[in-house]
């Protein structure tokens, strides 16, 4: 059992080491890397199967008892996140098999991806605030290296923005973690949840949590601190962009959900603030997207906007809203990564990422048009795809909680998202290529990319048509999140005090 709990950390670490040791042979590196990602996905699925039965798995790393030891806790949300990380990691590695002249396509790519994955999985399963900081840093340094992989003026420019702003957020998180320790005497999330619930923490602890949430808001790209995302995500190599788009901001969202549901489970002033932040994020993200004329820049602003939806679910603080947030997390990771992948394929086929210089894809590659339509319509919330259920639950939760403005903003954002997707559709797919036949590029070597995209599209359709079980899981996860006592009990039973 303990091995299974630690496996989301062990598998990517082992793959990282293996791919570094096998550097001499690119084929071995690719094979090991894919094997590792598949193993991570399998471990995630096993964890989901266990967590779905209602058990919260917890263990103490190294056998050291809490609060000095680090607890690893896997509940339904964590298990689902680990599984999705495995899936997106595998899809990214499969996509990266496609033939590409980008210098980023190197042996260094694979160890770095697994370094990133270990940080992401660690953040999802840790039960200690400082350990969360450590995993954030692991994933951050991995993301620095992946972002700049391949070099060039543009990539370095985006990396400078990304590095500086994320380091500032890191410092803020570290300060908050230290402050929280000083104010409360513990870093163990379960112990802190107990102390917060009993009202035994001084005001400084609440202040430190506010600072921590600000740091997570920067990482999750919420209004008004989202500027770094559209300034940096679009310069990376396509698979790297997609991996970031799918996973990195969602780790920030996960941290927000975890901290708020554990420490401040009841609706409070913080939830009010989060509600306004969510509404602003949704609107401004999608309006920013409307102003862009390049595929990945539009999609980057959409990441911002969609994160607003997830925070809306968190801010409403009702079980249905939390369930919507969890479902949205799962649905959006798949859809967003898929859209970035498709943007990459479209750019390869038309020779440019700028909408003005793209065109003719519907006539030339109708399969790509279908594969684009699925995640695009899902993002906009068209039934019967996954996005519809996610948005429906969130809007219903807003109406139930009498948050009329939030519901209106959510719906308006959906319309603008659809507008954005139709813009990409018109420019890249329907209109003829401005350079005519001469603008078409070879599609040779693209097959792995198409497999990755098809698999993710199939997942979106499956989640959409089979939304029942997924929504049941999300509702159950929200129940677990809404009752920190279960989390605390699981940690205590595992050997924590």
């Amino acid at each position, binding site marked *: 059992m303990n091995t299974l709990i630690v496996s989301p950390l062990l598998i990517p670490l082992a793959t990282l080491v293996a791919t570094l040791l096998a550097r001499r042979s690119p084929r071995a590196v690719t094979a090991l890397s894919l094997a590792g990602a598949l193993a991570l996905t399998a471990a995630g699925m096993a964890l989901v199967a266990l967590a779905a039965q209602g058990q919260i798995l917890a263990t103490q790393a190294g056998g050291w008892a809490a609060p000095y030891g680090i607890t690893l806790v896997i509940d339904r949300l964590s298990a689902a996140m680990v599984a999705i990380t495995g899936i997106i990691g595998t899809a990214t590695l499969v996509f990266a098999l496609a033939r590409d002249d980008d210098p980023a396509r190197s042996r260094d790519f694979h160890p770095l991806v697994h370094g990133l994955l270990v940080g992401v999985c660690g953040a999802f399963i840790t039960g200690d605030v400082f350990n969360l900081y450590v995993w954030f840093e692991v994933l951050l340094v991995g993301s620095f*290296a992946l972002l700049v992989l391949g070099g060039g003026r543009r990539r370095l420019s985006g990396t400078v923005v990304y*590095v*500086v702003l994320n*380091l500032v957020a890191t*410092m803020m998180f570290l300060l908050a973690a*230290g402050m929280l320790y000083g104010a409360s005497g513990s870093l163990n999330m379960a112990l802190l949840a107990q102390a917060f619930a009993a009202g035994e923490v001084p005001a400084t602890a609440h202040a430190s949590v506010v600072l921590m949430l600000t740091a997570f808001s920067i990482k999750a790209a919420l209004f008004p601190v989202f500027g770094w995302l559209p300034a940096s995500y679009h310069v990376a190599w396509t698979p790297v962009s997609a991996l970031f788009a799918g996973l990195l901001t969602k780790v920030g969202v996960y941290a927000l959900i975890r901290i708020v549901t554990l420490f401040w489970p009841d609706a409070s002033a913080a939830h009010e603030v989060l509600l306004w932040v969510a509404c602003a994020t949704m609107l401004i993200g999608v309006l920013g997207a409307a102003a862009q004329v390049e595929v990945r820049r539009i999609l980057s602003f959409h990441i911002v906007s969609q994160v607003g939806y997830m925070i809306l679910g968190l801010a409403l603080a009702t079980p249905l809203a939390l369930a919507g947030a969890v479902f949205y997390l799962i649905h959006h990771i798949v859809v967003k990564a898929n859209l970035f992948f498709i943007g990459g394929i479209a750019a390869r086929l038309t020779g440019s990422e700028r909408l003005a210089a793209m065109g003719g894809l519907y006539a030339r590659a109708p399969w790509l048009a279908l594969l684009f339509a699925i995640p695009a319509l899902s993002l906009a919330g068209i039934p019967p795809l996954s996005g519809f259920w996610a948005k429906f639950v969130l809007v219903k939760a807003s109406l139930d909680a009498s948050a009329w403005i939030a519901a209106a903003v959510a719906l308006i954002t959906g319309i603008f998202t659809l507008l954005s997707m139709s813009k990409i559709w018109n420019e890249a797919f329907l209109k003829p290529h401005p350079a005519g036949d001469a603008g078409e*590029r070879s*599609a040779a070597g693209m097959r792995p990319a198409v497999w990755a995209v098809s698999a993710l599209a199939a997942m979106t359709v499956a989640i959409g048509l089979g939304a029942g079980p997924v929504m049941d899981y999300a509702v159950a996860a929200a129940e677990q999140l809404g009752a920190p006592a279960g989390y605390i009990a699981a940690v205590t039973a595992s050997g924590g005090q």
Partner: protein
Amino acid sequence: MEIVFSLAVGVLGGSGVWLVLRPRTFQVILGLSLVSYAVNLFIFSMGSLSIDAEPIVRPGVPQDLLHYTDPMPQALVLTAIVIGFALFVFALAVLKRSWEVHGNVETDRITAVAEEPAPDLPAPAGEDKA
């Protein structure tokens, strides 16, 4: 002692933040360094600020926080220093490379490069279309 320590953390943090907002990359990275010093000192001070109470067990002295400073923040600071070091080494490498590639160190001009329209893929040279 607390007032001196707080002032030190404040001066470091304030200078760091000011430097981060400056227009040149070296100033920015120096600012981030100072901010990290401030944060690390702050975390260190979360254990009590005391003299002659280092957390090394002495025989016969009761092992509680009245007789020793809290060793936990010291462990946290060690971790944070190591992590910060790695991040800054990487940031320095990026900034050095950025200076070589961009030819200047003005942050506004460097970050403007990512805002330019995406370069088109190089034209195919005699490729056959699928």
